[in-house]
């Protein structure tokens, strides 16, 4: 019985530590994908400005409220616009950005294929 109680205590300690670590990881992941609007070329995670520190607290609060990563991005997008996100969304301004690598890959592939066929013949 004593062993069982000891096991339960250990289990809860490990579980709560793991869950805190996961939350902290997610918070870091989110803040790394947010642009510090008053800094030059720094993410919120990297910056120590007042704005970035407030955003870090806010992200933590929102996670504690149960919001998902995407919901937090949407919330911040509604406040500051898409510029706050490092990962640009697929829209009319970013068609080229997203499609160019695929296009280059396809064209490159076609050229290699053509060369390959020519060599074979």
């Amino acid at each position: 019985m004593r062993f069982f109680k000891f096991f339960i205590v250990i289990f809860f300690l490990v579980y709560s530590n793991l869950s805190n670590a996961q939350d902290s990881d997610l918070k870091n992941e989110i803040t790394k994908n947010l642009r510090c609007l008053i800094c030059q070329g720094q993410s919120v995670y990297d910056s120590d400005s007042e704005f970035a520190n407030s955003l870090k607290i806010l992200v933590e609060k929102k996670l504690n409220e149960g919001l998902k990563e995407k919901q937090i991005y949407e919330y911040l997008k509604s406040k500051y616009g898409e510029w706050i996100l490092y990962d640009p969304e697929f829209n009319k301004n970013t068609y080229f950005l997203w499609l160019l690598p695929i296009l280059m890959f396809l064209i490159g592939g076609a050229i290699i294929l053509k060369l390959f066929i020519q060599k074979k013949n």
Partner: protein
Amino acid sequence: MKIKISPFIYTIIFLIIFFVFYKGLQNSNIYTPNLKMEKNIPSFKAKTFNNDKFISEKIFQKDKFYLLNIWASWCVPCREEHSFLTKLNKEEKIKIIGLNYKDDKKNAKIFLKELSNPYDVILLDEDGTVAIEWGAYGVPESFLIYNNKIVKKIIGPINEELLTEIKILIQ
């Protein structure tokens, strides 16, 4: 065997790359907030200077002008704009609400004692999260509110020119 790739493909690739980089050059890398967009005021909870609980819906009434001013005693430009806020406070058509941003309460009180208090209500934003609700990113920043909508966003200190503009808007 001579490898022949149509010059047409090269031209197309070149043109696409040129077009993308040319477009990219025109984009600004500096964050320029949208000052003209009318937005509804956010719903938030905060504490007042007297430690009373404050709910945004209770204070912002329709058909009235409000100026929400984000300030702090450690902020030097806030000192510059303070005299203009005091002038604006004399206008009857507008209420000024101060949001004390990441400040020491004692220092904030000294600041107001020294420069006068132009605010009808002062709210506390100890961790800066209320300012984020407003889409602000620093101090000083002000929001002119009418009918529960932000009609003007002012980034930086209020000056004579902006004061005149606000006075015209509230007439």
